[in-house]
């Protein structure tokens, strides 16, 4: 992967000037590359990684395993895209193994998610069955630990 992308994946807020210093490029070159990535869709967006467990908001998240009947010509894509369109659905992947699609769904409470699954998801033609698992606590997300580890302090000056 391009080093610029690696750095942005690590910290999307890094200034073009600092990125340029790290990569031995000019600031202009960095800006052009970023614009190109955005235009071609390699970079789809920038988001903050939020530890919702720390917020005083009601939010539940569930992982849903979905079995579907693949369609002639459409395969899994048409159904997967249909599932993806719901705003309740955060992410969708096509999986190998005992089920086909894995979706992450969010809602204000258990009832809301349960209602979405039973009324909206399970009723889609082609979806054979669903299994819903509610998430209890986040330890690590997008490569970031949710609780800051207390690291052992180094000596202030050493040889």
């Amino acid at each position, binding site marked *: 992967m391009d*080093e610029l992308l690696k750095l942005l994946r690590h910290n999307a807020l890094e200034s073009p000037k*600092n990125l*340029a*210093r790290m990569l*031995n490029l000019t600031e202009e070159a960095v800006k052009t590359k970023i614009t190109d990535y955005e235009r071609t869709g390699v970079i789809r967006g920038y988001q903050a990684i939020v530890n919702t467990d720390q917020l005083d908001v009601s939010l539940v998240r569930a992982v849903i395993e979905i079995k579907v009947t693949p369609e002639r010509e459409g395969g899994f894509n048409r159904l997967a895209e249909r599932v993806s369109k719901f705003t309740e659905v955060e992410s969708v992947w096509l999986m190998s193994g005992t089920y086909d699609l894995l979706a992450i769904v969010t809602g204000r409470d258990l009832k809301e998610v349960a209602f979405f699954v039973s009324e909206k998801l399970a009723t889609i033609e082609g979806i054979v069955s669903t299994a819903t698992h509610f998430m209890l606590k986040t330890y690590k997300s997008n490569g970031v630990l949710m609780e800051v580890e207390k690291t*052992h302090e*180094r000596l*202030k*000056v050493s*040889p």
Partner: protein
Amino acid sequence: MSGSKSHPEAKKTGPRDFVAGYLRDIPRSGIRDFFEIVSTRKDVISLGIGEPDFVTPWHIREQAMFALDQGATTYTSNRGLIELRRSISTYVEKMFGVNYDPESEILITVGVSEALDLAIRAIIEPGDEVLYHEPCFVSYAPEVRFAHGIPVAVSTRREDGFRVTRRMLEEKVTSRTRALILNFPTNPTGATLTQHDVEEISAFAKEHDLVVITDEIYSELTYENDRTSIAAVPGMKERTIFLHGFSKGWAMTGFRLGYACSTPELSEAMMKIHQYIMMCAPIISQLAAVEALKTQADTEEMRSSYEKRRNFICAALNEMGLPCHVPQGAFYVFPYIGDYGLTSKEFALRLLDEENVACVPGSAFGACGEGFLRCAYATDLEEIKEATVRMARFVARLRKR
């Protein structure tokens, strides 16, 4: 630090001084002095830390815990676990192109520090001279003196990128010279040698019949250039003691684990000292090191991270008017600060005082380090950014005065 060579008579007022005269003559490390000043202050951003800011990779720590869990709390053979020596043999051959027999040519030690001490003691007779290049790691000269040898510094220069050349060595060699210590990539300059340099130095060592002790502790942190080790030059393995360890490349400083590779005869001699003074390296560290050598992904990831920080700090220093060559290895930059009418110690103290940024004065690494500052960039990028902002402010003020 008295200059007296013999035990002085007890002073009338103080207690009798039992410390050996030769030891009293060896100064304390300049880094130690500086550490004591820095440690009294709060909220310091330190670019003075000569160790990785990474915690040891998790799979290595996890293996160390498993070892403890399994009751690995015993001595090992004096040479170290054969499993680890085999892994080291494979690694050194793959990365450096030299083959060492795990049974008779590899010795596991408590850090490269112990390995260096063993190497010097194994070859030095009292009065023998040992060449080493400055600016350098603080231990070389004292360790030679502990063995009653005479350390002979060879000054390297900014114009040469702090490489040591055959010509510099020829100026200092005498009939008493017994050995040459090399450390590339170098602490504190980040200098590396080219293949040509290494071949020239090899020819020099052969001509003067010297043993070469090569401290390769930073070799995983080599950037644009290829790694070059003198041990790999044809005909040099026979007269080289190759020292390496896990502290820098694998972020395992606290594990205290190093090794010495050499001929069976030299290895046996070092073993003799090691078995009496140390017995063996800690078994948990040895088992962790076996795990460390299973993949090169960790060292590569850390190297890549250091490289970006190096690029950042070099650009920032040059922009603010502290010229520095771009070091090809280790995690130090060594900018020139001699344009502001301050010694490197004064510069470092004022920088600390006025902006709370700690860098080690170049003079702590030898007389020819005067006029320079060692900035270690094995520190969080956000801290490096803030440190360079503060340094730029400091330099701008100096320029106005």
